[in-house]
């Protein structure tokens, strides 16, 4: 098990290196650079700045410097924001994105398991039909639409009540997290619901559930002890990619809800071609996702004993 974890970690580092290299090359392939902004500058100033940031060096050398810094955990200084290290930007803003993301994943996981189980228990009856209809909506409608709609609904409710029940946007209190995390987790929840439903249906008619019935166990016990754990396995498998989907989705949701998360900086940096910030956030997100996938795989081994030994 430990050996497996180490092996996965090494593979993860290689993946992150690949991400870093690909981002580096892609970034330099884009026309323009961080210095070609709105303000026209003289050739002399430009040259000085390029020298300062090492942009005058050949690309191969830049790459090596970059990798070397990366290995030391130094992600560099922002080109466009005065005196801000990328590390600071991440340190300040990532916890916000992470809180939002974790809440969204928790929301999606619990909701998906619950609704999926519900649809399977009420198969072809009205709760099944209603939930599955909602699932199709949840999967096909993009999150920014839900974000805007939820804001509209909050405004309507607040005006109807005469006081502010939930904040429309912003960050700071628990009530600020609630709606954005739900919006963010919605798509994943819909997907997990569908997965849970089919997995439950398969297990309900399986031989070992028949055995559990033949042992005279109560339905609730069969559900909690025998069905859930087995039905949840496929969900755990997709949880890694699901976390990826949620984190990338958070860029948009953060923007709509005016949440000062890392996603906003990332989008801004891309628009301004702020090399170090793009690189830093991409590599950081990449590393984070790789770690999540590894953790999910280890968790999978914990839930399914058959994976543990192999």
């Amino acid at each position, binding site marked *: 098990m430990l050996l497996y974890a180490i092996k996965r970690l090494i593979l993860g580092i290689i993946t992150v290196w690949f991400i870093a290299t690909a981002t580096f090359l892609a970034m330099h392939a884009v026309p323009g650079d961080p210095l070609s902004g709105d303000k026209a500058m003289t050739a002399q100033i430009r040259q000085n700045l390029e020298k300062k940031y090492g942009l005058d060096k050949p690309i191969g050398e830049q790459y090596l410097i970059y990798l070397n810094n990366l290995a030391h955990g130094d992600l560099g200084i922002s080109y466009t924001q005065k005196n801000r290290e990328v590390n600071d930007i991440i340190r300040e803003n990532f916890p916000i994105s992470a809180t939002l993301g974790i809440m969204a994943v928790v929301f999606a996981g619990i909701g998906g398991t619950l609704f999926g189980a519900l649809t399977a228990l009420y198969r072809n009856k009205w709760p099944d039909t209603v939930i599955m209809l909602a699932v199709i909506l949840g999967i096909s409608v993009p999150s920014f639409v839900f974000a805007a709609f939820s804001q509209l609904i909050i405004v309507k409710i607040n005006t109807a009540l005469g006081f502010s029940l939930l904040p429309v946007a912003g960050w700071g209190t628990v009530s600020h997290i609630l709606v954005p995390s739900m919006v963010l987790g919605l798509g994943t929840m819909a997907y997990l619901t569908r997965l849970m439903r089919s997995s439950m249906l398969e297990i309900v008619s399986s031989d070992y559930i028949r055995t559990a*019935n033949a042992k005279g166990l109560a339905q609730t016990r069969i559900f909690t002890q025998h069905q859930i754990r087995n039905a949840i396995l496929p969900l755990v498998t997709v949880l890694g990619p699901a976390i990826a989907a949620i984190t990338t989705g958070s860029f948009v949701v953060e923007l709509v809800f005016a949440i000062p998360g890392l996603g906003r900086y990332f989008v801004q940096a891309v628009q301004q071609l702020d090399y170090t910030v793009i690189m830093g956030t991409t590599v950081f997100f990449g590393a984070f996702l790789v770690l999540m996938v590894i953790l999910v795989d280890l968790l999978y081994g914990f839930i399914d004993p058959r994976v543990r030994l192999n």
Partner: protein
Amino acid sequence: MTQNGSGETQPPLLEVNDLKVEFDTYGGTVQAVRGVSFSIEGGQTLAIVGESGCGKSVTVQTLMGLVPMPPGRLKSGTATLRGENILGQTQIGGKDFRGSEIGMIFQDPMTSLNPTMTIGRQIAETLEVHRGWSRKKSLARAVELLEMARIPEAAQRAKQYPFEFSGGMLQRAMIAMAIACEPAILIADEPTTALDVTIQAQVLDLMQDLQRDRGTAIILITHDLGVVARMADEVAVMYAGQIVERGSVDDIFYRPAHPYTVGLRAAMPSNNPAAEHRLLPIEGSPPDLFSPPVGCAYAARCPHAMRVCNTHDPAPFAVGKGHFGKCWLHHERVPGGAQRIVSAIAGATTGDVVQPASANQGDAR
């Protein structure tokens, strides 16, 4: 009906009467079980034999409340455990009789156990639920039960998962699970079909030993006549959702009263190397249970079919004590009919059946 063995003073351990089960499908209604009656006493082994799709499993799974309804539907019939109704319900006096009064094991042990729960827990669970024992006490008992089921190093094995067991060991663990609460009846639904022959013997031996020690009644569902000969006291032969012949194991093997039984018997491979032997299949296929024939269900495949067989369903004819055959050949207006069935064996098999013709006369005394 012809069954008259049930005593007036004490109801039989398990009695099933005129059980009819149907399934509603998109193609129509399948009449899977069409009037099955039998009873069993403690310590007895009743084998239910017949080919695939004849309703054996549906019969016992209905008794255990394992047939999903819908699509299944109970059309008629009664089933009583010591006089108490068990049909259409899973409880007697507020307690689930499944697992406590009737234990059951299934065909494929590989898929019949929960893959994410240890074997010990799965056995202990039954005790926790029915006896109200603590987790610890139940687990300790589970280890004892595994030992009883001849699982070596039972204490370690109890902590393992089903995928770490072999097929034969899993089936023995299943037996340990089914008998954990010392049920009065053990239903074994093709317990050895998925196992290879040497393992089969171990599993059957275990069942027999447990029966001897505890006086458990066994209902054994199988299509293997070798298993029947080894295990059964009583045999019920099923065809197209009905019991076509019922009798002692000797009756079935030496004095069969239904052409289908003879056909099954003849289809059994022989291991006599001297005999020039071909497998004799029963030609044709079982009737469509969406619309079963009006007459005898076996008529289309029966070498002795008469005109009446196609138009009228035969009643069970008593041919001996506790032995009946559901065949028109036993009717008084078919002289020598019974002999025709029996003589067919002599023709069909290689002669390892003794005194075929006189057997029936002996019964008629």
